[in-house]
């Protein structure tokens, strides 16, 4: 235990200079993009002497490092500067207001993606080459190839369609999937396959019959955009809240499910071919125990690492998702700050993101060591 906390301390100490470099590079990039003098000059009808007066008054001609220094010294003291857009409110308060909505979105998306990716990976890896595996592979490639913003917009269109045609789409969709899956292997399948195929056909019929009765009343089942501000609704577990969450979470999860499930499949297939899995079978363990207890347990460590490493990419996904769905979170705030040249808010968000990525990497390494006793923390002997 002592070794673990010492390791964490060491890692965090290394993180400090890293954070400093991140802040410096980000500041330079944002400073150039946010050059206020250039913006003043670009406004039509503003006279050059007015620009010069403003520059003089507000110290806008100060070199970048003075601005950076005053930002940095403020930041470490907890004064993150003033937001240029949010009615002069503090940048920190503005960001912290938006933080919970992002944590909720990303946390849920992380949970959903991880669980589904592992589940799909296991299903695929235990029957490679089967119809189910091929279907999941196809879906994964589609998910991987679809940019997040496009996925978000498509899902929104689907939700609008659902509002106009009602719940009938649910039995229709499930029925179609069952029917296709059943038909694909009807020839070699047994009674179960026939039952699945028949159930699919019945569901489709049901959907057609119910189409008019269920549809067209304009009831919104899934909201396509933000209709609440975080925390104001009170009840986090309300149906309304969930209705708002489904589409953004799905949008943000799609790519992760695609990539992680492929990775889980590959690692698990390797693991299932290993000697110790063959030995576990020879000991008479049930296939379930062999796959979940031995193969998957070994195959989980690399996947956990990938998940943690992908957290940074997931935040950029959140920026897009929150923008598409008007989700009142940090991602949308970052996008707005970038558009409005709100350098203090943008810097604050970048720094929070950097800390989050560093912590996620640390957790990944700790998790790997916990899942695989052969891996020593920090590369030393165990």
């Amino acid at each position: 235990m002592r070794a673990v906390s010492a390791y964490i301390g060491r890692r965090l100490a290394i993180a400090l200079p890293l954070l400093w470099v991140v802040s410096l590079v980000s500041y330079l990039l944002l400073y150039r993009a946010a050059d206020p003098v250039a913006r003043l000059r670009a406004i039509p009808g503003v006279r050059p002497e007015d620009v010069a007066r403003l520059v003089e008054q507000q110290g806008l001609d100060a070199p970048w490092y003075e601005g950076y220094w005053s930002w940095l010294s403020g930041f470490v003291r907890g004064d993150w500067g003033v937001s240029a857009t949010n009615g002069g409110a503090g940048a920190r308060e503005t960001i912290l207001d938006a933080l919970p909505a992002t944590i909720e979105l990303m946390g849920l998306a992380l949970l959903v993606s991880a669980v589904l990716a592992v589940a799909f990976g296991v299903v695929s890896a235990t029957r490679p080459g089967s119809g189910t595996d091929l279907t999941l592979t196809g879906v994964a490639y589609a998910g991987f190839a679809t940019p997040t913003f496009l996925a978000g917009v498509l899902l929104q269109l689907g939700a609008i369609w659902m509002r106009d045609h009602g719940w009938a789409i649910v039995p229709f969709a499930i029925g179609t999937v069952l029917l296709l899956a059943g038909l694909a292997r009807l020839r070699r399948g047994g009674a179960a396959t026939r039952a699945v195929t028949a159930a699919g056909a019945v569901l489709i019929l049901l959907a057609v019959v119910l189409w008019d009765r269920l549809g067209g009343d304009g009831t919104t089942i899934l909201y396509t955009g933000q209709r609440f501000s975080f925390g104001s609704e009170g009840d986090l577990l309300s149906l309304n809240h969930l209705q708002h969450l489904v589409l953004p979470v799905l949008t943000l999860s799609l790519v992760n499910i695609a990539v992680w499930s492929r990775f889980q499949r590959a690692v698990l297939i390797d693991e299932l071919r290993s000697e110790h899995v063959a030995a576990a079978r020879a000991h008479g363990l049930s296939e379930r125990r062999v796959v979940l207890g031995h193969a998957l347990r070994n195959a989980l460590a690399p996947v956990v690492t990938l998940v943690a490493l992908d957290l940074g990419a997931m935040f950029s996904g959140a920026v897009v998702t929150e923008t598409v769905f008007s989700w009142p979170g940090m991602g949308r705030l970052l996008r707005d700050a970038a558009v409005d040249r709100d350098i203090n808010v943008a810097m604050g968000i970048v720094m929070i993101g950097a800390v989050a990525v560093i912590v996620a990497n640390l957790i990944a390494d700790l998790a790997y060591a916990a899942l695989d006793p052969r891996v020593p923390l920090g590369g030393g002997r165990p």
Partner: protein
Amino acid sequence: MAGVSALLSARGLRVAGPGGAALVDGVDLDLEAGEVTALVGESGAGKTLTGLALLGLVPPPARMEAGAVTLGGVDLGALAPRERRRVRGAGIALVPQDPAAALDPVARVGAQLAEVLRAHAPLGRREARIAASAALAEVGVDRDDHPHRLSGGQRQRALIAMALAPRPRVLVADEPTASLDPSVQVAVLDLIDARRREEGLAVLLISHDLGAVARVAGRVAVMYAGRIVEEGPARAVLSAPRHPYTAGLLALAPRLGAPRVRVPIPGAPPQPGRLPPGCAFAPRCPAAREECRAARPELRAAGPARRVACVLTDREAAALGRGPS
């Protein structure tokens, strides 16, 4: 052949590789309770696959094409998958080939052994844990260790303890001493032999180490290119081989007190699927003649409880055993 009374008997085992080539071709085996039967031969002869076929665990892409295995009179091929699985471990147990890879690297050995116990007996977690610790302590392994912290000998002993824990009636031990120091080899063999003596365990000892075979085996079956070419009581086969291949293997084996030049068998075993017509050993056989290449010699009786698949007469084989000198 030992007849119908054998504890485990396999008939006509045939395992085919991905291209359809026979890797194991018509192997019959009988394992008697309380007896060690050694299966010897060069690597690639199909020894491991034969062992796995007994468990019904031929690894893909190879597959078992034909053959029947009965254990205590029960035809294992007729069992439902669930029942078949129960027989693994509790009926026929396996000590796998590579002890370094055969233990789950992320689980403690105690937990792995407890899991095997619980798969075969209605034990609670605590009971299984206690039983597992005891079984491991017996072989000098700490249940809380992870496999990577164990020595090669400890791993092998843990695997043997694991295989023996559900009290199987038959043990298939695949090269149990191959990766071990000579000093540890004897201890590992004794571990298996003790169970044979005390509980009438039937053992199939897959090995190319004729020293180990001579030490514990009651019977010997020699495999070449997927077939059994000679079989009989260990003492008789090892002292007076009837098949030129057996004689070649014996010439290779180091023997105490007789430091003589090791004579390798010339050539290499044939590729599966590209066997020569007639006797598969003919291209390497010092005694091969026209007759050998014409038709494949089948296993035939050759003396008390012995069988051989070779055209040579007793007298010719005996002359061969003495060597050319």
